[in-house]
């Protein structure tokens, strides 16, 4: 090889390296979405019609709302796996008919229930310093165990009319559910960027020990985060129940895992103090789109699971390698 071509290939290599680094420094969700859209263009172009895309976006709304909470948790080095449990609990409260109250009261009870779960999680995680994964898994076990045991006695009925309307209404061609999601997203992103709370979340994520030593109200921040996460889960449950129309104990089963995958894909990593709200949001859209793609290709539940796991594992590994270098 002559000298000039060597230097040329080196220059190209360098360019590739630099652009590679830029792409790697963005949340994987961005690149992933592009790749998926290209794949869909060649394999199932029908998925790319505006009508279907809006439908998929609507379908992504419950996950997207849950992801907001999960991303907060992970930014303070915690994890919330009770999201699915909360949804099951909400579904039971709203649809079992066991509680003889009008719908608005039931919705309120569901919200109070969410706050209670968040406080319980936070109590164990901050005061007793138990592992957040363990705590939230245990809480999920308890809620679903009780709800399923009771649903044996009395099977769940129809969803409240408000929720069914909520997801059916469209403004122009845009579904209301999607608007609700966006309406939550923007103020929260702004709040996290500008508020004391947001700063504290970055600090705790970057170095929890230093946050403790320099007198940041650690316990309060983590508690608020977990309550918020549970509240988002309640809202996510509202949307899901609205979609399905009837209560179900299977609702939200893979919500916790999907939200975890979305947050990792969205660029929030343990111990970096970095990560925003938009990365995970794009990741939620991307995951939902990919599930639709897989289904349209005739692949079922197993393929979905394998993809989820691979995404979580590979993304988490890639981020920590990146952090080391």
């Amino acid at each position, binding site marked *: 090889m002559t000298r000039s071509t060597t230097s040329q290939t080196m220059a190209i290599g360098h360019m590739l390296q630099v652009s590679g680094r830029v792409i790697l420094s963005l949340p994987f969700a961005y690149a992933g979405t592009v790749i998926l859209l290209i794949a869909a263009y060649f394999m199932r172009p029908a998925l790319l019609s505006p009508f279907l895309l809006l439908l998929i976006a609507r379908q992504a709304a419950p996950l997207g709302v849950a992801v907001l909470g999960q991303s907060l948790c992970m930014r303070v080095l915690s994890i919330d796996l009770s999201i699915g449990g909360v949804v099951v609990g909400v579904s039971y409260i709203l649809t079992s008919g066991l509680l003889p109250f009008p719908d608005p009261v039931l919705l309120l009870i569901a919200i109070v229930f969410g706050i209670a779960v968040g406080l319980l999680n936070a109590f164990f995680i901050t005061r007793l310093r138990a592992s957040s994964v363990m705590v939230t898994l245990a809480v999920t076990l308890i809620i679903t165990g009780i709800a399923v045991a009771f649903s044996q006695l009395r099977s769940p009925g129809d969803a409240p009319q408000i929720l069914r309307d909520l997801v059916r209404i469209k403004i122009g061609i845009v579904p209301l559910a999607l608007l609700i999601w966006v309406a939550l997203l923007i103020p929260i992103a702004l709040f996290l960027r500008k508020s004391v709370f947001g700063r504290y979340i970055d600090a705790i994520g970057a170095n929890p020990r230093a946050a403790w030593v320099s007198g940041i*109200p650690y316990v309060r921040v983590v508690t608020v985060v977990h309550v918020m996460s549970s509240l988002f889960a309640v809202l996510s449950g509202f949307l899901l129940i609205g979609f399905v129309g009837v209560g179900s104990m299977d609702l939200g089963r893979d919500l916790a895992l999907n939200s975890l995958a979305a947050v990792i894909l969205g660029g929030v990593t343990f111990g970096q103090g970095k990560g925003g709200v938009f990365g995970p949001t794009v990741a939620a859209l991307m995951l939902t789109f990919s599930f639709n793609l897989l289904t349209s290709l005739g692949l079922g539940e197993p393929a979905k699971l394998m993809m989820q796991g691979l995404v979580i594992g590979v993304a988490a590994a890639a981020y920590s390698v990146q952090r080391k270098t």
Partner: protein
Amino acid sequence: MISFDKVTKRFGSNLALCEISFDCAAGSVHAVTGENGAGKSTLMNLLAGIFPADGGEIRLRGEPIAPERPSEARRLGISTIFQELTLLPNLTIAENLFLGREPMRGAMVNRRLMQERAREIMARLGSSLDVDTYCGDISLADQHLVEIAKGVSVDADVYIFDEPTAALNAPEVEKLGALLESLKAAGKLVFYVSHRLDEIFRFCDRVSVLKDGRHVETRATLSLTRDELVSLMVGRVLSQFFPARPTPAESAPVELGVRDLQVVEAGPKVSLALRAGEIVGLAGLEGQGQRSIIRALAGLHPSMAGEVTKNVAGEMKLLKLSVVETVMAGIGFVPEDRKTEGLYLPLSINQNIALGMLPRLSIWKIAPTGRNLIADLMLRMNVRSTSAGQEVGQLSGGNQQKVMIGRWLAAGINVLLLEEPTRGVDVGAKTEIYGLLRDFAHRGGAVLVVSSELLELLGLCDRILVVRQNEIVAELEGAGTSEEEVMQYALTGHAKHSQASPCLN
């Protein structure tokens, strides 16, 4: 036996070791000394296989070596007694002594043989500890003894003792001396890393002095006087380094009052007062309770009893000792280990300093950006960086230290508690940090410093409180006292003239 040839080591942008070259002979005890941060431990860690050198060569009997792992160093015949304990608290003394080279009988650990040999080893050091006790259950001094026992029980040609006496009491230091003699007699090379002059002159044949990562000189100890060695280590006139002390103002108000503070169960009680405008130092030997006292005031160490009051607008208010409360009351704490406890390394300088401005705000409020304040502070503190958006993790030690102090200056606090304010900081930045602290005091703040560098306390502080066994045994004028006097109190707890200072810091 060992020669260093232009050995160089970098940590990020920090040059920790720069072209170190000297030789060491078998059958001798070779001291490696210098101030904190001079690079002693870094040099020894290269030999111990903790990390590789970036340049130069280390030769063992003329053969170049580059151990990549502690186990590899051990195979080469280099045994290290680390400064930080490497004992496992959940293993017994015997198990700890033989961890990684357990005597086996078939597939099983030969416990009886292990215990027997452990007993022999401990007896050689004159210890009668039961070798079946868990290491987490014995005192810190005993743990250090076990650590030493572990190091010398390895059959090696080169032994590295990294600050072995930091936690030992006088009789154990004697035993260590005898041990060093026997190793020397057996034709081994012993590296003795220490900055205690007394021990260097008593135990060591030759001494290599490092300063700021460079090799200053290697000499036979017999050819040196104590003063010569100190000047080699310090290499400068001290008075130039420290800002001038203003004349003490007796009338200044007390900012922080401490009465009968107890930091260990059933321990002695500590009382002190910090006045506006003064810098007070807590001196003493390693592990005598200075750290517990300052951390108790910061709300990070539990206090058993006592009362702490803080001046709030001219009125002394009782303070609850929790981190959140103390920060709210206007007390800032700068920990020794800035990487794990002090800074948010992945965050920018801006973010790190701005966090100081938040404690008195509700978490739901909009946070001030404080751009002007931060720019001002960075200028005043002379923080060298590409921009205020640079990650703190990329800064040098001195600049990181300034950012940490800057966070509290931005917070508008008036009591500053510092642990080892200049650890791992280059000389230039040290002077600047001393200047910053003096300036803070001059503006009406009160400063309490814990440092293991006695020279630093002597140069910087208005008053020095000497701590021994969790008790304040003396209060000395910074300008009027001497190393000897402070060490006398630190070692014995009372004033009675003895011949010389046994320790530099």
